[in-house]
């Protein structure tokens, strides 16, 4: 049943992305002759469509390397990892890993982390909406109770860790960013990406902060998460980090009790 159509589409699909394959037989122009130029329209549409989707999803990356380089890199990625879903705003989950080993880009070792920030930005943009905890709501909790609380992080919250000053680099290359020179040898930066309301915000997190947030995300209490952060950075400052998270709208709720069993992360 439907064997011919299946074979036809298998053949058509394979030749769309692999330009070394010949135009499948039976694809004809109005004179009945095989037309590679006509088949090439579909080849072109597919790849250009995916390049456009990536251009829209990764504007800072494009600005850093220029449009021509970006298109070539996006084309290589699109052919190697075409999307698996018609929801194209999700396309590019593997782009950072692809770029990390993409030969022409190896001289820009920070590029995959810029892509990770842009990817986190997109995920935050489309994430489930939730009301963020107001700083006042937290201030109302008695001090002796806070330490054992377990916080729910906002559904849009993402953390990107980098050995490069990636937040600085990203910021210089967004639409309103001021382009300048960043010292890529300077200290690594970790980013907090969250969208508590309409706007996605990207903030720099101090040392130990990424570990702290990851621990909270896994269900650990404030005390337990602080301990995790201190194993990574002995001078971890709880009040600064907590302040940043609260100000950013990074919490959507809190509760007490046993951890939710997702503590294996640390």
């Amino acid at each position, binding site marked *: 049943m439907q064997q011919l159509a*299946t074979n036809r*589409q298998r053949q058509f699909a394979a030749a769309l992305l692999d330009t070394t394959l010949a135009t499948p037989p039976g694809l*004809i122009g109005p004179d*009945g002759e095989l037309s590679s130029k006509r088949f090439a329209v579909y080849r072109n549409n597919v790849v250009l*469509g995916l390049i456009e989707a990536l251009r829209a999803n990764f504007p800072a990356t494009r600005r850093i390397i220029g449009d021509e380089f970006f298109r070539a890199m996006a084309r290589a990625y699109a052919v190697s990892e075409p999307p698996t879903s*018609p*929801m194209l705003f999700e396309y590019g989950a593997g782009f950072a890993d692809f770029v990390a080993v993409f030969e022409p880009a190896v001289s820009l070792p920070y590029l995959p982390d810029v892509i990770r920030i842009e990817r986190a930005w997109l995920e935050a943009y489309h994430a489930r*909406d939730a009301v963020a905890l107001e700083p006042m709501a937290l201030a109302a909790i008695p001090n002796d109770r806070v330490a054992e609380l377990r916080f729910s992080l906002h559904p849009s919250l993402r953390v990107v860790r980098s050995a490069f000053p990636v937040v600085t680099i990203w910021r210089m290359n967004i639409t309103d960013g001021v382009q300048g020179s960043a010292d890529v040898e300077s200290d690594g930066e970790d980013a907090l990406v969250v*969208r508590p309301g309409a706007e996605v915000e990207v903030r720099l997190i101090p040392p130990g902060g990424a570990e702290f947030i990851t621990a909270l995300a896994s269900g650990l209490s404030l005390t337990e998460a602080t301990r995790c952060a201190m194993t990574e950075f002995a001078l971890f400052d709880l009040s600064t980090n907590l302040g940043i998270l609260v100000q950013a709208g990074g919490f959507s709720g809190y509760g007490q009790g046993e951890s939710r069993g997702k503590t294996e992360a640390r």
Partner: protein
Amino acid sequence: MTLALESVALDTRPQAILSRAGVGLKAEHYRTIVATRPDIGFFEVHAENYMGAGGPPHRYLTEIRSHYPLSLHGVGLSIGAAHSLDRHHLQRLKQLIERYQPGLFSEHLAWSTHGTRFFDDLLPIPYTSETLALVTDHIDEVQNTLGRQMLLENPSTYLAFAESTYSEIDFIVETVRRTGCGLLLDVNNVYVSSTNQRWDPIRYLDEYPLAHVQEIHLAGYTREADEAGRPLLIDTHDRPVDELVWSLFEHAIGRVGPKPTLIEWDSKVPTWPELKAEADRAEAIMLAVGKRERHRAATGY
């Protein structure tokens, strides 16, 4: 005894799409539309752009939907695929329809997925009894799952299949007869395909099952050439509607009367006034043709 009136949530959103012009809703225009509430017949969105869990797209669409009728246009269901439909995707469509209550829902006579791959293009199918069976099965499944009629859009095609045994129109007529689906007549696609396939576009329209048309699409195309130097038009949606397509639209409206008509402009998106001007032109044509037809009916000329 008091009636709990506040517990009755009335849906006051405009539902039916009138025979006016609308435009494809682009993120670039969200703020202008919300701030200025332009006089326009309806908005149409690509369903897949609103399948995220939350965020600004839903906020804007909810706000815009509270003031305008909405048409939902799928671009990823892959009705012409030789494999079965993606049930998860169909469920996502169902949820969107329940949430936004669009006046019309449409999809394409094309395929765009194979195995786990999504090709982001509307790929052509041969017109055979085998593909007719699979397209009708898929449309049946869509309409049964969604609990409503869908409109099927005629494609822009760049090539033909040697194995085709039906004309495009016979294939569409038979699909409508077997499934009871409605039609979205894309007049730009008629012009693009007719040029590419060396058909007569007027004859195409005259043979088309116009009684089933519930919506019309208009868009811009790009002109290229094939290896023999014959014109090869590409359905790019990146510029104004061509003059020849406007004439063809006028001809179509003369035959079917005014219909909800959409301007599709999806890449190199223009400013809001430019886009709105295209919709105004479509509406002016529908008014003029309507007036002419009424005059003809009244006077016999």
